[in-house]
């Protein structure tokens, strides 16, 4: 046991003096988790999950212009009244096309009068009061920033059309009520009648959801795992240096088992993996709120998180040992290691969630150790799952570790 701990301390001392290694293991995943989370959060805003500003030019100054603005505001959009210098259709278009606003809406002058005329024509035609039901459609110019994603564009169009439909229904219902009862209803009472919900949506879950799923909950565990698997490079590189420099030869001439020496490396880098995970979690918990992001929290399942992190760390270390045994140079180990980890991360759902991948990639993702670890962490952190629910993913990590170490021990020189 003493030799095991001494070997582990030796590894930590070597790493402490390796500035490049420390940068790769700690600074790189820290930067990546901040940058990627900020970018993804911003993308979500751009796709409409957050408030979108609408440049609104009301040339009508009538009921339609006022009602439309109210309806769009109630739907979650931020109405920005066009300033005097943008009081023309062309200037609104220019502002939106130029990227100053995501969308611009213009209510042309005379819209309310034209709406009243055409809606009455339609009402009379459909209720047999004479006249034809053919109407002229009222054109409302709407401009979109060309850089707006199609999904945002569709969402905004739907909200505008819904608002216009609500205005039309309200006016026609008022006419219908007057026709049927001979009375007219106060406009506010009618609006209240139409707004009164008759249905409500209830979300049922078997267990209380642990956390809201957002880019923070996706990225903190993902990039922490990514950083952990990069420990494979210093582990493999260190073993290669020992083999090529005669150190391994010297060690094999001493009364110490190769398993003890490898165990020391694994113990040391398991500590490093835990520190990496803790660092990324602290970034999520403390730094992210300062950047306007939701805080990363672990509201439950602490034991499950610890077990998952330890098994993922073991898998990463075992991979590093294999690299150090099968590669013939430090350059080969670092290239193969880095490439493998990046590919496994991409396939495993670190950069893009697995559910967002095409079906064929979702099928491939199941071979990635990072996917196993990430799935387990998401199940624990977001879905509130307990350890039994993630045994299959943890089992895969353990099996990977055992197979990798078995392979390494089989191929390691001087093992007799």
């Amino acid at each position, binding site marked *: 046991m003493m030799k095991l701990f*001494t070997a582990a301390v030796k590894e930590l001392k*070597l790493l402490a003096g390796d500035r490049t290694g420390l940068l790769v293991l700690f600074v790189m995943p820290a930067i990546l988790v901040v940058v990627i989370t900020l970018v993804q959060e911003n993308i979500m805003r751009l796709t409409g999950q957050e408030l979108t500003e609408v440049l609104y030019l009301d040339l009508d100054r009538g009921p339609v212009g006022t009602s439309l603005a109210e309806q769009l505001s109630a739907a979650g959009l931020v109405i920005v009244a066009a300033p005097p210098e943008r009081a023309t259709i062309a200037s609104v278009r220019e502002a939106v096309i130029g990227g100053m606003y995501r969308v611009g809406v213009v209510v042309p002058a005379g819209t309310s009068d034209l709406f009243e005329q055409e809606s009455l024509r339609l009402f009379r035609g459909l209720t047999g009061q004479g006249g034809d039901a053919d109407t002229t459609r009222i054109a409302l110019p709407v401009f979109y920033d060309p850089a707006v994603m199609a999904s945002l564009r569709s969402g905004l169009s739907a909200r505008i059309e819904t608002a216009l439909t609500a205005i039309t229904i309200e006016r026609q219902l008022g006419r219908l009520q007057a026709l049927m009862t001979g009375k007219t209803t106060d406009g506010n009472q009618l609006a209240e009648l139409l707004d009164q919900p008759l249905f409500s949506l209830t979300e049922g879950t078997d267990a209380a959801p642990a956390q809201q799923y957002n880019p923070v909950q996706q990225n903190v565990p993902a990039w922490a795992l990514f950083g952990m698997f990069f420990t494979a490079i210093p582990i493999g590189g260190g073993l290669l240096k020992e083999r090529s420099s005669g150190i391994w*030869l*010297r060690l094999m*001439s001493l*009364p*110490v088992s190769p398993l003890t020496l490898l165990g020391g490396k694994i113990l040391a880098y398991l500590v490093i993996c835990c520190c990496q995970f803790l660092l990324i979690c602290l970034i999520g918990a403390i730094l992210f709120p300062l950047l306007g992001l939701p805080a990363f929290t672990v509201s439950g399942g602490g034991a499950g998180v610890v077990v998952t992190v330890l098994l993922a760390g073991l898998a990463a270390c075992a991979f590093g040992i294999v690299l150090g045994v099968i590669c013939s140079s430090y350059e080969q180990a670092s290239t193969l290691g880095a490439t493998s980890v990046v590919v496994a991360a991409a396939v495993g759902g670190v950069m893009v969630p697995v559910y967002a991948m095409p079906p064929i990639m979702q099928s491939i993702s199941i071979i990635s150790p990072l996917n196993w670890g990430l799935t387990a962490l998401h199940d624990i952190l977001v879905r509130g799952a307990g350890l039994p629910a993630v045994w299959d993913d943890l089992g895969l990590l353990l099996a990977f570790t055992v197979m990798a170490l078995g392979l390494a021990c089989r191929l390691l020189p001087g093992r007799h």
Partner: protein
Amino acid sequence: MSVINRNQAAGDGAINACSLVKRYPGAADPALDHLELQVRAGEFYGLLGPNGAGKSTLIALLSGLLRADSGTIDIMGVDPAQQLPALKPLIGLVPQEIALYDGLTAAENLSFFAAMQGLNGPIRRDRVARCLHFVHLTKHADHRVATFSGGMKRRLNLAAGLLGEPRLLLLDEPTVGIDVQSRALIYEKLLELNAHGTTIFYTTHYLEEARDLCRRLGIIDHGRLIDEGPPESLLQRYRAATLDELMLRLAGSRPRD
């Protein structure tokens, strides 16, 4: 100050290798071809030979890092192939490479290797201090090996091989690439160890150092021991004025691939 205390009877066999054969996979010729070698306890034995003659392979076999395809080895009554754990405390290996961690200090390197020897606590600290003193590196104990000169690294490399107070010291070209002064210090220390009873098995290309240090020389080529004896008697036997001439006569003048 003596690093090592000896109680081994001089004249007993330290190394007894009989008909050793070792062939590497894919190699046309065996690295060792029925090699016979005996080294007496307390002897300073030098092994000379051109590149690829089998010197490093023999060192690997004697230290238990490789197993012979056939033949027997007896090191102070221990068979490396069958009794490897019993062999390791008896030997010290000084490899041809500088087998040290550049990122650690001299003391940290020795402390680590001493721990792997099974030494702990005050015994480890004492052994490390004595070995550093032996090779005149005490004042550099807390300096990283990466900052050492080639001569200092070679001295520390030697010190690492002495941590276990071995009865048999195996050195594979321990003075390659260092200056005369460092080499002289290493010679002095090796002779001191040998005077106190440590058996030394030494491979080298430097023929004059072999002549100065070794009581007996063995000439190896193509995996076989061609001849052996005290340096002067070898020179007389082959009527060579120098060991260079002797080597060229025995091993040929064509460079080895």
